[in-house]
């Protein structure tokens, strides 16, 4: 509902996957481990406002928290991120279904993984190369398998047709199957899988952490409906799932899972229960009280009104909640995309950026609880790829205060050769976003720019703004990388082939530089390229970065460990436990 | 109208009855010091215009005025008991039993949701413990008496399946089913067709003879009065302005208002197309009854009274003959002169 429930918490940022890398950006480190020793057994509760998971089908999951949850419980992937609160360690990978993190040959264009012995599906049948290959092939059936990441399509060495689509149409039609079978091959014993890529991808072993590359037994594939009864390869399996308010998903132990084959997952609890559709206030109240079952419950957000109760400051938890609450930089960058097709004049775009009161926007979002001022789309916790863009210091001609500078904006408009523009601001409606819109309208108004708010129902939001005919000049957005490489940011946001190019940005030089950076094998050189491209995009004011987001979370009294897993900006589900009594 | 010899009081004796309703707009004096009396087997007609207080008088006698909403004062002696002072439960036992009432509009006086048979037996059961079967027999017999054809069959019909006249017969049956000694009929024929009116009046008279009932007939139809009444009380502005025997009222009227009423009756000898002689002006509002004589604003003869007593003094009820009383400031001689003048002009009314 529009105003009373704040919509899905997951959807607040947008349908973006997330992962954040290394480095102690923002100086936040309130992460603490929950007290007590892990106990085997018990039930862990996952309380959520969402009425269902966006997707359960492994090839269609594309939300950070969901990837972490399902990867940790039912879908094994070739490689996976280490569990650690440490930003560097927590985003490094280990072998999971594969014995190690894979071997690259052919300059990073061919990748080989060996599948572990003893890995089985929930029916006891062994996981083979064919199952991984079949799972991967499902991504190509774009008319059935929607919503998931499409890296398999863009990276595997399969020709594209004239219209830009892959010549392989997925396993259901079988059209172009031979092309896929050439790109993904299995050894005779079915233990080794080889991916032949169309270009060097130095970090392809990070790509396969996505459940889009998880194994699916062909015999069990029901296409569109596979998510209703997916086959588990992890320590748990879905016993029941009922979506909607009052509904729940119950995961029970998968007795065919052999711990000896999986040193990655701890699998402490006997049961996981996801309670759907709870009011956000109810979730907060239950976790604050932490009585009964709620002692081993977790959720992934706190309402602003409770922040003062739980935290002393954005980096310090009140003693009462010590060991139960975290406040960390999340993987996301919040920004306003400027539709360059509709605002082609750079000076006007600069004027909009200069006029915007980012200070008020941040305050409205929760002040320092909401994060730090952003200067680009690459976040400091991305590590090597981050460098200050100088957006607010030099890129706009002079230093711009966080509260904006209407006078400078007016000068820029005067220099643009155009009249002060009238623009429309698209945003997903919520009470907080309504206030943010008011701030946008007011602060741009001070520079003579007429802004009109255009609230869109949250569930319809990306459906509208991705439609070039329906998107307006200024578009609210947020993005987090898919793995620790800005190759999952810059190309996605700023090139016509990217999946999240809300700005409709299409600059030939820029596109060419992106293609070069993508295949650069030297990570340090590549990082410098991403930094430059980030700065270039900011100089072109393709987006106005507003905030490097920070988030707060709370759990019950008897659950651990309590830290934000840097890999997905999520809970470390696979090693969570009920505290021993 | 003195009491009969064998009793101190008449069978029903109303004296100085007043009913006042306090409303938002002020106190409504619906009945103001009304007195009359009636014996068993006799018929008293109360005549007057709408709003003159005759219906309220009847309801006050029946104890149907809600004492929460109204002040009732005076005395109503019914068979020796004062009904005004009587508690509600006592009144209830009398109502529908020793005294009964039928109303003006038979269309709305019967409960639309219940079969008429049930409504009749309910009246029986309210006062007597009788078996279902015998209550039913009595009801059917009563329906037969009031002239409902095939009463056993119609027993189970709903009111809306009857015509207006038939419904009034059912009402009469219901009123008389416990053989009351007093029947008050409040404009029983006003809502009915002219042809049916006569039948109903005849029916009432007939049953009155059979049960030796005292009947108070409330009407504005002087024609009926002439036919069936023994005594007549003329009401105007919440008061009885003249009362007496039928002959007194029709042949020796004393009060200008009574004259006006008589004058407005269409007569056989009237020239067709001649307009009736209405009394000029409108009846007074019970909220603001005129001071002095209530009729004074409309009285054309007040110039025959010396001084302003008509406007200032309430005329007393004055005996002008055996049982003939009148409230008027006109001197007796003037009254006679005025009456003769009018009656001669009109010709004597046909009876």
């Amino acid at each position: 509902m529009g105003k009373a429930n704040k919509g899905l918490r997951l959807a607040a940022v947008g349908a973006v996957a997330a992962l954040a890398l290394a480095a102690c950006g923002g100086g936040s480190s309130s992460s603490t481990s929950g007290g007590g020793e892990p106990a085997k057994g018990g039930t862990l509760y996952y309380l959520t406002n969402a009425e269902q998971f966006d997707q359960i089908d492994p090839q269609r999951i594309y939300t950070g928290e969901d990837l972490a949850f399902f990867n940790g419980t039912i879908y094994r992937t070739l490689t996976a991120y280490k569990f650690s609160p440490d930003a560097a360690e927590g985003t490094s990978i280990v072998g999971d279904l594969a014995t190690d993190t894979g071997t690259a040959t052919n300059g990073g264009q061919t990748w080989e993984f060996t599948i572990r012995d003893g890995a089985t599906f929930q029916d006891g049948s062994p996981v083979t190369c064919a199952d991984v290959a079949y799972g991967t092939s499902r991504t190509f059936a774009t008319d059935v398998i929607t919503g998931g990441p499409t890296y398999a399509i863009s990276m595997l060495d399969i020709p594209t047709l004239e219209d830009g689509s892959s010549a392989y149409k997925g396993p259901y039609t079988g059209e172009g199957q031979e092309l896929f079978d050439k790109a993904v091959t299995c050894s005779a014993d079915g233990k080794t899988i080889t991916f032949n890529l169309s270009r060097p991808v130095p970090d392809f072993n990070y790509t396969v952490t996505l459940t889009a590359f998880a194994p699916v037994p062909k015999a069990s594939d029901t296409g569109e409906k596979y998510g209703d009864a997916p086959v588990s390869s992890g320590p748990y399996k879905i016993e029941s799932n009922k979506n909607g308010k009052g509904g729940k998903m119950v995961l029970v132990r998968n007795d065919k899972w052999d711990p000896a084959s999986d040193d990655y997952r701890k699998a402490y609890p006997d049961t996981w229960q996801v309670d759907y559709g709870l009011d956000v206030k109810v979730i907060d109240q239950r976790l604050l009280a932490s009585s009964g079952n709620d002692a081993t419950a977790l959720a992934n957000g706190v309402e602003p009104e409770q922040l003062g109760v739980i935290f002393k400051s954005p980096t310090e938890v009140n003693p009462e909640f010590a060991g139960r609450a975290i406040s960390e930089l999340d993987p996301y960058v919040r920004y306003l995309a400027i539709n360059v097709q509709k605002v082609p004049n750079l000076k006007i775009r600069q004027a909009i950026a200069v006029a915007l009161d980012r200070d008020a926007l941040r305050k409205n979002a929760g002040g320092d609880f909401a994060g730090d001022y952003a200067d680009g789309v690459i976040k400091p916790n991305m590590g090597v790829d981050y460098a200050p863009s100088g957006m607010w210091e030099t890129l706009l001609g002079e230093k711009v205060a966080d509260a904006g500078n209407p006078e400078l904006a007016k000068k820029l408009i005067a220099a643009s050769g155009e009249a002060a523009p009238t623009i429309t601001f698209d945003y997903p409606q919520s009470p907080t976003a309504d206030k943010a819109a008011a701030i946008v309208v007011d602060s741009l108004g001070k520079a003579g720019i007429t802004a009109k708010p255009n609230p869109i129902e949250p569930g319809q939001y990306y459906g509208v703004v991705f439609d070039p005919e329906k998107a307006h000049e200024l578009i609210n957005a947020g993005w987090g990388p898919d793995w620790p490489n800005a190759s999952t940011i810059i190309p996605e946001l700023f090139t016509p082939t990217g999946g999240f190019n809300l700005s409709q940005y299409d600059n030939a030089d820029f596109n060419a530089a992106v293609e070069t950076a993508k295949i650069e094998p030297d990570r340090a050189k590549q990082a410098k390229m991403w930094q430059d491209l980030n700065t270039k995009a900011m100089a072109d004011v393709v987006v106005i970065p507003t905030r490097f987001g920070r988030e707060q979370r709370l759990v019950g009294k008897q659950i651990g460990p309590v830290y934000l897993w840097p890999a997905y900006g999520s809970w470390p589900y696979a090693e969570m436990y009920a505290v021993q009594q | 109208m003195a009491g009969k010899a064998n009793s101190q009081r008449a069978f029903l004796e109303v004296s100085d009855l007043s009913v006042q309703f306090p409303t938002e707009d002020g106190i409504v004096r619906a009945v103001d010091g009304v007195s009359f009396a009636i014996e068993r087997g006799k018929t008293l007609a109360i005549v007057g215009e709408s709003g003159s207080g005759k219906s309220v008088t009847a309801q006050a006698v029946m104890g149907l005025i809600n004492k929460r909403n109204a002040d009732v004062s005076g005395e109503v002696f019914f068979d020796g008991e004062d009904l005004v002072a009587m508690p509600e439960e006592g009144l209830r036992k009398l109502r529908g039993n020793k005294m009964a009432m039928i109303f003006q509009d038979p269309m709305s006086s019967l409960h639309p949701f219940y079969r008429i048979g049930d409504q009749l037996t309910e009246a029986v059961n309210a006062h007597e413990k009788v078996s279902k079967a015998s209550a039913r027999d009595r009801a059917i017999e009563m329906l037969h008496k009031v002239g409902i054809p095939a009463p056993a069959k119609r027993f189970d019909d709903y009111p809306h399946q009857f015509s207006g006249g038939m419904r009034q017969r059912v009402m009469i049956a219901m009123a008389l089913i416990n053989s009351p000694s007093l029947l008050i009929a409040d404009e029983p024929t006003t809502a009915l067709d002219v042809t049916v009116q006569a039948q109903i009046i005849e029916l009432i008279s007939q049953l009155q003879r059979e049960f030796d009932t005292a009947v108070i007939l409330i009407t504005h139809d002087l024609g009926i009065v002439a036919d069936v009444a023994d005594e007549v009380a003329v009401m105007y502005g919440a008061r009885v302005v003249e009362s007496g025997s039928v002959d007194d009222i029709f042949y020796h009227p004393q009060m200008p208002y009574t004259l006006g009423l008589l004058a407005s009756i269409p007569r056989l000898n009237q020239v067709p197309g001649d307009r009736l002689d209405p009394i000029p002006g409108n009846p007074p509002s019970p909220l603001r009854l005129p001071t002095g004589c209530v009729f004074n604003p409309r009285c054309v003869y007040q110039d025959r009274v010396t001084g302003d007593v008509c406007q200032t003094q309430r005329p007393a009820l004055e005996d002008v003959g055996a049982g003939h009383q009148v409230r008027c400031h006109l001197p007796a001689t003037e009254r006679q002169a005025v009456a003769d003048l009018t009656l001669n002009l009109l010709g004597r009314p046909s009876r």
Partner: protein
Amino acid sequence: MSAYVVRRVISMIILLLLLTLVVFILFSLLPADPARLTCGKGCTPEVLEANRHKLGFDLPVIQQYWEFMKGLFVGRIYAADSPSPVVCNAPCLGYSFKRGEEVLVLIKDRLPPTIWLALGAFFLWLAAGISLGIYAALRRGRWQDKTVMGISLAGYSLPSFFLGLMAIFFIVIRLQLLPYPSYVSPFENPIQFFQTMLLPWIVLAILYAAFYMRLTRNQMLEVLGDDYIRTARAKGLPERVVIRKHALRAGLTPIVTAAGLDLAGLLGGAIITESIFSLPGLGSLAVNSVNDADLPVIVGITLVTATFIIVANLIVDLLYAVIDPRVRLV
């Protein structure tokens, strides 16, 4: 009578057909492209087209309507020509690709909380509304009457969401008399069920009872002034018989109409109350579907709700004929 019912049912069906058509035309105007919503990231024009086809949105509105109507009777297969068709069995109210579920199943799932809410509130408000209304009528003009009418005025002047939020603020947050509402089935955990439903029942009941107090009082006053009540008193019936048998029967008849229609309306989902108390009923399903632009669900709920109301109209009319012998169904 049976001829009447047949005629009413026919006109009811016509009305429903008209309604579905209007709903279809209205919703075909909506801005969000449902095909795009299920398309996700990495959406290409041809995927979009395929989705549109799968959902049947590539057809003209009238044909979509025809497909929908056909689905109601013979079921429907979405994306029949694709490798993984979705079967929706008759009666098919549509299929939500957003939720991956048949609309009818979704509605059936969400109906129980709505029914509990509606029934509980219904009995509360009828009991409170009618008894206080009668009481006020019998004490007309006195302080009891004025008090009841004051309560009624307050009741229907309070916006439901304000009342609901205040209930949560005082009862749940400040006094902590009840836990935060969190719906469970009464068969699963009756105590939590009652703890959850108590406030929504009371809030809804207050809103409706306010109206029924007034309605009952005015009805009773009107009936108490009717001639047949005077007749009943003149018969010497005890006052309680006059009130209970004669006045109530006639006075409460119109209330049957109002109550039937109000109950039917509530069965379609109390949007605001369900939202505030986060009850997983039809109302909150409706609001969520509006937010998600989940057209098949919105259309389905609209139709189901309208059907409730139209059927309730018929039932109330039939009931009326049973209660009031004057009413003849022709």
